[in-house]
């Protein structure tokens, strides 16, 4: 399985990068943009694992290292690898 982990600054946490990118998009005339949050995308290769196990491992990885819960929130999906 392959886990796709999406990490974004938590709601209410200052995201200067997102604000700057949002402003730049509006400056380009893409003025429907209300807000942008810039985060991280992490791919984890988990060969030979069933879905439940892969989800468990991914959640542990997020909670123990990949995400700082004070400032970030995350979601992930586990998909079949090659």
């Amino acid at each position, binding site marked *: 399985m392959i886990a796709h982990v999406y990490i974004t*600054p938590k709601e209410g*946490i*200052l995201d*200067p*990068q997102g604000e*700057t990118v949002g402003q730049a998009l509006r400056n380009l005339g893409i003025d429907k943009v209300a807000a942008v949050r810039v985060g991280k995308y992490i791919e984890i290769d988990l060969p030979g694992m069933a879905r439940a196990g892969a989800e468990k491992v991914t959640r542990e990885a997020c909670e123990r*290292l*990949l995400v*700082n819960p*004070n*400032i970030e929130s995350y979601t992930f999906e586990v998909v079949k690898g090659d």
Partner: protein
Amino acid sequence: MRFAVLVFPGSNCDYDAYHVVRQVLGERAEFIWHREASLDGFDVVIIPGGFSYGDYLRTGAIASLSPIMEAVRQFASAGGLVLGICNGFQILIEAGLLPGALISNSGLRFISRQIYLQPEGSGDPFTAGLDTGRSYAMPIAHQAGNYLVSPQELEQLEKNEQIAFRYVTAAGERTADANPNGSCANIAGVLNREKNVMGMMPHPERAAEAVLGSVDGLALFESIIGRS
């Protein structure tokens, strides 16, 4: 006193800290590589500045998992003094030894310049010898020094006197202009509840000799060794 100066891959203020302890203070200091697991016999641990592990993932995140950090945890819980400077502060936060988070500077830029800070007089050994009515000049050099806590946590920090330093003007005013990086409540340094672990973004070790332009940082080291 015997100081341990921790060294991680990417530490770059380790020699500065070692130099201040050995040559300026005349105390004992040893470098401790992050793969080591013991801090026996030391009185003070300095976690120096730099870019441990290239700031991968989040500043301090990877270093906070190094073997030496378990020894730091034990050392701190036994009452030993731990001082984290700049990246050392970030590492202590990621290790859960200090509260809050450090995010990108509000202006998104790396800032390297002299600032002023004022001790709060929180009854800790790091600032015991400092004057709460004075502004201390020290340099900062960081990209992620924007200290962040929730309003509830901030209230707790104030109540427990866990704020060590705040950014001020040369005249000692706590204004928005004096705050270089957007830190919540102008916070430049914090303490754990027991007040034996401190983290700060400014660099006292780079302001400990006249030739460096400021000797204001020396007071902090003298405070630690009880020589002020």
